[in-house]
């Protein structure tokens, strides 16, 4: 670390006031605070101080994402070799998937950070660290075969329209990672849904491989659920976006988030409860095969678990009151399953459900605050 400190100290004068590169100070500041806990002290008023700042908490989220990321890499390789009909070692599969995912991650980070730095320098504010997590989330929720330029366009759209127009990190209404996916989904539907995109290099694989996700299969009625499938879905060896498939790996991430206090257990739990509840209602109705799917299966299919743990808990776009978190989470679960079952065009309802509830979260908060104020006023009168 000392090397970095000395390096930073030696270039610092150029970026400070009067230096040659003064305009680029936000960029310098971003690197310095990324590597070291900043030594600024608060100048006015009193604040609650905590040793963990935004950058540190973002790193925790990244760590929580790693199990799902690594599983996704293995899964990509596993599916590829499975489709080829070849046996392969664990590491062959893993390194194949890692090599396939690396370009996506690189493009997401390079493009996204370029936009962020450009805005920070233009506006003269600090580079916000929110993109550290967003940049990793975006490739994780895209299909592996998405062309890189589409990914780049989606990232640019998400960062500019999803975030910067509202004033940057902390001001956005919608989750930027999901904004990117929603944009790609509606802009290039052929590359985000269907049965040609979930296996990497599918065109090189001989015919006869069905490439639809289980959700799409259930929606079209091609698949009938049997109870032994649950463990497969839970472990995640199925088709889907890069890292959304394994509920098991995601739950490890959830544990990290909850123990470190960064993700809200209220949100996570209520999303699952909401999804289960809606799945159960459909079970009672049972008008078609998809509705008859046992409710717990809904929770491990598609992006449900990933959305519940990593998207719905985004502190900026989620509800900020505890009661609100429960209400919003519950509604996310309900809408996700509702959209899945009722709209075959969108087999994955999680993305739309979360974006929808992102919009409503401030409203929910508003009424909870109002109710609280009213209650306390009444107490004062009595």
């Amino acid at each position: 670390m000392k090397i970095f400190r000395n390096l930073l100290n030696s270039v610092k004068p150029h970026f400070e006031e009067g230096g040659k590169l003064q305009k680029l100070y936000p960029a310098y500041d971003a690197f310095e605070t990324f590597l070291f806990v900043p030594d600024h002290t608060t100048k006015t008023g009193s604040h609650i101080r905590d040793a963990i700042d935004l950058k540190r908490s973002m790193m925790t989220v990244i760590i929580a994402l790693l199990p799902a990321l690594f599983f996704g890499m293995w899964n990509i390789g596993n599916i590829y070799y499975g489709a080829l009909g070849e046996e392969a070692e664990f590491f062959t599969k893993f390194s194949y998937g890692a090599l396939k995912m690396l370009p996506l991650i690189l493009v997401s980070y390079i493009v996204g950070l370029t936009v962020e730095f450009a805005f920070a320098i233009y506006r003269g504010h600090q580079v916000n660290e929110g993109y550290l997590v967003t940049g990793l989330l975006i490739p994780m929720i895209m299909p592996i075969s998405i062309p890189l330029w589409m990914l780049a366009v989606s990232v640019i759209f998400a960062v500019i329209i999803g975030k910067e127009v509202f004033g940057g990190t902390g001001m956005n209404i919608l989750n930027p990672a999901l904004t990117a996916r929603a944009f790609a989904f509606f802009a290039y539907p052929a590359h985000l849904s269907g049965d040609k995109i979930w296996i990497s290099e599918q065109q090189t694989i001989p015919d006869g491989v069905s490439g639809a996700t289980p959700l799409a299969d259930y929606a079209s009625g091609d698949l009938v659920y049997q109870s032994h499938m649950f463990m497969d879905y839970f472990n995640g060896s199925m088709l889907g976006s890069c890292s959304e498939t394994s509920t098991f790996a995601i739950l490890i991430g959830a544990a990290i988030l909850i123990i470190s206090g960064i993700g809200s257990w209220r949100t996570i739990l209520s999303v699952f409860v909401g999804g289960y509840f809606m799945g159960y209602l459909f079970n009672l109705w049972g008008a078609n095969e998809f509705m008859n799917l046992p409710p717990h299966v809904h929770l491990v299919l598609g992006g449900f678990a990933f959305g519940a743990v990593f998207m719905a808990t985004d502190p900026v776009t989620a509800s900020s009151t505890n009661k609100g978190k429960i209400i919003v989470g519950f509604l996310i679960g309900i809408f996700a399953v509702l959209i899945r079952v009722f709209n075959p065009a969108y087999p994955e309802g999680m993305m739309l459900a979360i974006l929808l509830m992102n919009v409503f979260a401030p409203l929910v908060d508003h009424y909870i605050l109002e109710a609280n104020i009213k209650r306390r006023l009444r107490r004062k009168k009595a």
Partner: protein
Amino acid sequence: MSDKKEALFSKKNLKLVKDPLDDNNPITVQVLGICSALAITVQLKPAVVMALSTFFVMCTANVVVSLMRNMIPSRIRIIIQLVVIATLVILVDQTLKAFVYDVSKELSVFVGLIITNCIIMGRLEAFALANNPWKSFMDGFGNSLGYALPLIVVAFFRELLGAGTLFGYPVIEKLGLYELGYENNGMMILPPMALVTCGVYIWIQRMRNKKLIEEN
């Protein structure tokens, strides 16, 4: 009256045309007439036809109402304005149907809805009723240009990025971008992107024109 001594293209009169183009744009600053702006900007052709129709209706209505301004009892002025606009719109509608039937089909109800376009009513109420015909004409001219400008810019980007064409001419295909793996952005055709494109237009406009930024 001092109006009569004023030159036809005096600074004040020219300002009537220039103001709505930027500082007081009906769509991007006053945010009026948004619904039609969002609905017909998928392609350039209907957008241009719409802009021309509105141009005709607004200029003529402004002049007519301004000529009648001393005869109109203020109680029933709205209905009279509506009659004037409606007559003009029917003229436009019939002309479109007669000469460019396919475009008129594309525009469907939106030609009829020019009647309720809040920009036109707003100009009649706010300007034509209180000013002489020449000034009213200038005002109508400026405002319809101010309506046309964002409309055509938004339609340009939506058609180019969404369908890869301009006025139906396959620009992207001729440039050979499809062979490089480029694909049209299906989202640009959907209504939400009209809002976003319009928003970006407003954003850029406000970045250039600092007068528009409210103090708070």
